[in-house]
Structure formats: structure tokens, C-alpha cells
């Protein structure tokens, strides 16, 4: 299965372009780091609010910047997909990549649960209000899992053989 994915992807035009061009890899790496800062900046601030920090801001106010956090995530999803298409073997065979994906899944399910079941309740949190315990847990899970995504991403070249 993983062998089939590797041979199929590596045969594509896009994969050759990613590894053949001198500029694509460094360019996508730079964009991947820029996306990371938007995600950490915007989502991190929302998580702090969920934890009950930066309390002088209403939840709705902090949430209004969220499109930029999503933009950062999309940048990283696209550049990440390009890395994967370029060199699928160095990710599929790398345990760090699987850990990264696992924490990505946790972060994703966490936000999905929050946005589908708690979004309305969250908007009632005004300036100065403390947050319910459930929100604090969700904020903590979010912060920890995003930093774990970063950590395992950074470990890719050191565990296994990714460049």
C-alpha cells in the first residue's frame, strides 16, 4: 500500500517539479514557517482566551481574527502536501511524520468538536468573563497538540531521513 503510494506520487509531474527545482523546496519551507506563525499567533491567542487568559477581550473579538489562522493552516496544508508529493517515502517511512499527523488529527477533532457543539455558548463569553472548565480543557488540548505538531515536524530530519 505505502509502496504503491510512493511509486504513484513519485511518477507525477508535480513530484519531479518539487525535487527537480532548486527553488521550490526552500520556497515552500519558508511559506510553511510563515503559515506556522499565523497559526500560532491567531489560534494561540484564541486558546489563551479559552484558558481564561487575556480576559479583557470578549471571545467574539478574538475569534474575529480566526480567518487569518485558517489562512496560515491552509498555507501549511498546501506546502505540506507539496513536500509529501515531492518525497513521499521520507515521510511514510518516518515515525515522526506519523506522530505529527496524529497530533494534527487531535487538534482537528478538538476544534471540530468545539465549533460544532460549543460555538454558540462561546460567543456569550464577554469581556472580563471567566471561561467554563470545558473550554479550558479544549484550549489546553489545542495549544499542546499544535506545539506537538510543530515538535514532530521539526524532528522529521533527525528521526528517519527527511530533508
Amino acid at each position, binding site marked *: 500500500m505505502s509502496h504503491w503510494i510512493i511509486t504513484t506520487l513519485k511518477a507525477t509531474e508535480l513530484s519531479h517539479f518539487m525535487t527537480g527545482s*532548486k*527553488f521550490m523546496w*526552500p520556497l515552500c*519551507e*519558508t511559506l510553511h*514557517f*510563515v503559515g*506556522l*506563525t*499565523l*497559526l*500560532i*499567533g*491567531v489560534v*494561540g*491567542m484564541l486558546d489563551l482566551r479559552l484558558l481564561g*487568559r*487575556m480576559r*479583557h*477581550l*470578549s471571545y*467574539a*473579538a*478574538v475569534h*474575529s*481574527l480566526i480567518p*487569518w489562522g485558517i489562512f496560515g493552516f491552509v498555507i501549511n496544508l498546501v506546502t505540506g502536501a507539496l513536500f509529501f508529493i515531492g518525497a513521499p517515502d521520507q515521510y511514510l517511512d518516518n515515525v515522526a511524520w506519523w506522530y505529527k499527523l496524529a497530533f494534527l488529527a487531535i487538534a482537528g477533532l478538538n476544534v471540530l468538536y468545539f465549533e460544532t457543539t460549543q460555538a454558540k455558548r462561546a460567543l456569550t463569553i464577554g469581556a472580563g468573563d471567566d471561561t467554563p472548565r470545558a473550554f479550558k480543557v479544549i484550549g489546553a488540548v489545542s495549544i499542546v497538540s499544535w*506545539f506537538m505538531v*510543530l*515538535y514532530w515536524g*521539526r*524532528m522529521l530530519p*533527525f*528521526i528517519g531521513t527527511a530533508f
Partner: protein
Amino acid sequence: MTDFFAMIENTQFSTWLRESNSIWAYPTVLTLHTIGLGLLVGANATLDLRVMGWGQAIALADLRPLFRWMWIGFWINALSGVVLLAADATTKAAAPMFLIKLGLIALGVVVMTLQKREAFAPAAAVTPGARSLAAVALTIWFVAIAAGRLMAYPGLFFGL
């Protein structure tokens, strides 16, 4: 100066950082450097976006705590950066991209200090000056990130 960098590079600590297979050596310091980057540029970008007109429901004065995160990120990276430099002092100190990156960081910190004064001035509305500063800050930090990344590809960008 070269002698000095060679001396640093040859200390036991630098050799350990460079050659140890331990996950606690180079990889951990590099991870700290990435976390610091995320905090510094992330917090600054959030402020910049607000100053440039997004998220108007946020009162600007309430973003003051972001400066604490910027400085935490800055110091994590100053310290982890010195350690990363020590590991390859002679190569890195002579790399044009490294010097460009250092220059950009110096500029970025100056702009960041100006931003604090400008953004939280008693004026109720965001001034055009503050808006320009935010755009400049965002640009400087993103280019600094590019310079840092390009350090891994010497000579790629116009021979730098």
C-alpha cells in the same frame, strides 16, 4: 575574529551539539528556535493584522500582553540562536545570509519597540504611521524567516 569563532566551535559543548546523536542536542535547540519564532512572529503578526484593520472588535489596548509573548519568543531565540551559532561558528558567522538575517532581526526589534509606542498612544484611532509600521514589521519578520531558511541553502539566492 575567525580565531575566536574557531575557538567557540571547538569547545566541548559545540562539538557535542554538532556530533552527538542525542535528540537533546541539536534537534532540541532547533525546536526551541522554531517555537521562539512562532511566539515572536505569531504575536507580532496578530498585532499587525489588528493595526492594519482586521478584527476591529478587539480594542487595541487589550493587545498589550502580546508584547510579553514577543519578548519571550525573542529571548528563546536569542539564546537558542547563540547555541546554534556556537555549533558551526566559523561557517555561519561568515555566511552572508546569516548577516542579512541578523540585520533584519535588529531592524525588526527596533520597529517592534516603535510599535509599542505608536500602537498604544492615547489617540483613539489607529494612525497612518502605526499602520505603516505594522506592514513594515510583518514584512521584516517574514523576510527574516526566509533568510533563516535560506541559510540551509548557501549560494542559492543570488549567490548569497
